[in-house]
């Protein structure tokens, strides 16, 4: 953000959001548990005995050297894309959140809060872009490409008909995301009423794979989808290697770069999270029914001697 931009005071959540508890729901904490097993923690924690240390988000490097994706994605591209763009988002977000309520929060939580039901707050762009780029580097690997296998392959066949149809749909999303943005494969396993945003595919059944595209910094976390794969279609992602030829870049990404292992392991975590949510939902419903049953029993005894109509 430009140095002259208005400082936003995040000290009072209610000043920014509808006054409701900052409840993030069980869905996000279970996402964190799975992500924690996979990633190092992004934020440092305050040490109890030292003066307050501002938590800083870190610039995480790709899981391979910057030249490892040659000749399909050049070292020059990686050095700008990761070294300047991704680094810039980290530095700018740290500047924006220092001393505010967002300081020290997990990245996913910052993204969720600042998306603000689509009425995006300034830190969202930086926070979401940090997440998106980490996810993007991990979606690729040296000597990538090939075909998906195992459970992932089965679900692709089930939900798209065939690998070719899926690839076609993914390519089409990536080509038709006008302007800057991203194209995703995601696992959709949420309640239709998505608290933070408008569900873009409300008619679809749950627990299935979907291809979605998003503009600028938006990502499927805000729709409560579980991302599995992404391609960056901001021009800076491909202009040095492909100039205006986005279609060629997309092809090379699918044929030579994509890490199906990463996609497969994310799918396993997505399914585990969905199963966990289902059992928590069942537990919650059972408890509600039990409480409702108890309340009815009490009411029966209260009303048995009354001549007046029942309260409800």
């Amino acid at each position: 953000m430009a140095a002259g931009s208005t400082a936003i005071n995040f000290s009072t959540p209610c000043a920014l959001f509808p006054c409701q508890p900052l409840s993030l729901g069980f869905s996000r904490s279970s996402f964190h548990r799975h992500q924690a097993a996979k990633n190092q923690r992004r934020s440092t924690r305050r040490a109890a005995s030292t003066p307050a240390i501002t938590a800083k988000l870190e610039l995480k490097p790709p899981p391979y050297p910057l030249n490892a994706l040659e000749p399909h994605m050049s070292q020059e591209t990686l050095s700008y894309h990761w070294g300047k763009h991704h680094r810039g988002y980290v530095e700018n977000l740290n500047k924006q959140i220092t001393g505010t309520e967002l300081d020290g929060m997990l990245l996913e939580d910052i993204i969720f809060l600042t998306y603000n039901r689509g009425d995006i707050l300034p830190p969202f762009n930086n926070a979401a872009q940090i997440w998106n780029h980490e996810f993007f580097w991990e979606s690729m690997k040296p000597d990538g490409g090939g075909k998906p296998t195992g459970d992932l392959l089965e679900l692709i066949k089930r939900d798209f008909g065939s690998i070719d149809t899926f690839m076609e749909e993914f390519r089409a999303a990536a080509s038709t995301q006008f302007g800057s943005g991203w194209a995703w494969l995601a696992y959709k396993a949420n309640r239709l009423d998505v608290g933070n945003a408008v569900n873009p595919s409300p008619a679809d059944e749950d627990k299935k794979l979907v291809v979605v595209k998003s503009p600028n910094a938006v990502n499927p976390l805000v729709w409560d989808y579980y991302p599995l794969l992404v391609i960056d279609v901001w021009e800076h992602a491909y202009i040095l290697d492909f100039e205006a030829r986005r279609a060629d870049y997309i092809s090379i990404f699918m044929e030579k770069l994509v890490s199906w292992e990463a996609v497969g392991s994310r799918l396993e975590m997505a399914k585990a999270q969905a199963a966990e949510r289902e059992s928590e939902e069942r537990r919650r419903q059972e408890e509600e029914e039990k409480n409702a049953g108890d309340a009815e029993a009490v009411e029966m005894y209260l009303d048995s001697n009354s001549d007046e109509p029942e309260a409800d």
Partner: protein
Amino acid sequence: MALSLCNLVSRNSLAPLPIGRLLLSTRGLQTFSLPDLPYDYGALEPTISGEIMMLHHQKHHQTYVTNYNKALEQLDDAMNRGDPSTVVKLQSALKFNGGGHINHSIFWKNLAPVNEGGGEPPRGSLGWAIDTDFGSLESLKQKMNAEGAALQGSGWVWLGVDKELKRLVVETTANQDPLVTKGPSLVPLIGLDVWEHAYYLQYKNVKPDYLNNIWKVINWKYASNVYEKESA
């Protein structure tokens, strides 16, 4: 059939600028072609490289023209068939590609080589209006540069004139939205393209350097002419 042709041929809903040479297809549908640049690709160096100018014109702008023509043909067909669902579905393609054609046609005229007046400050009524509405030319440039730097994703920064309120405005639009989408009485004078393809090959991620430098080749004579016409 004749009615729908009349609707297409009267381009009141499109930008009232002479955008490109018009081609008439055998079906009578008005389509568009890529306008020539009024200078060589290399003529804006070192401010904007010849490589960028060539790709920007021959690839990006040409693609908007091609896809705009395709969308117009599909629109013509859908209207003739009485297919409102397809007509509505085509609106985003028309806006993307038609907007891209409109905006870039203005952009090429907004630029001029230094030896043809590029960078020379505006005089006359536009110069006065800038001082009145922004304090100074420097202050206007700083405002537009700040808007351009802060713009997330792809888009444009505009200096425009509100022909109803008789006042200059600075506005941004996203993607290829033309300035008129920000207000029906807004007329574009200068547009700065801040899509990455406009500067990245030369300036890489340093968008502010591109914005600081582009003023050296801005053609204020064109902007003044448009301003005087709208203020008459």
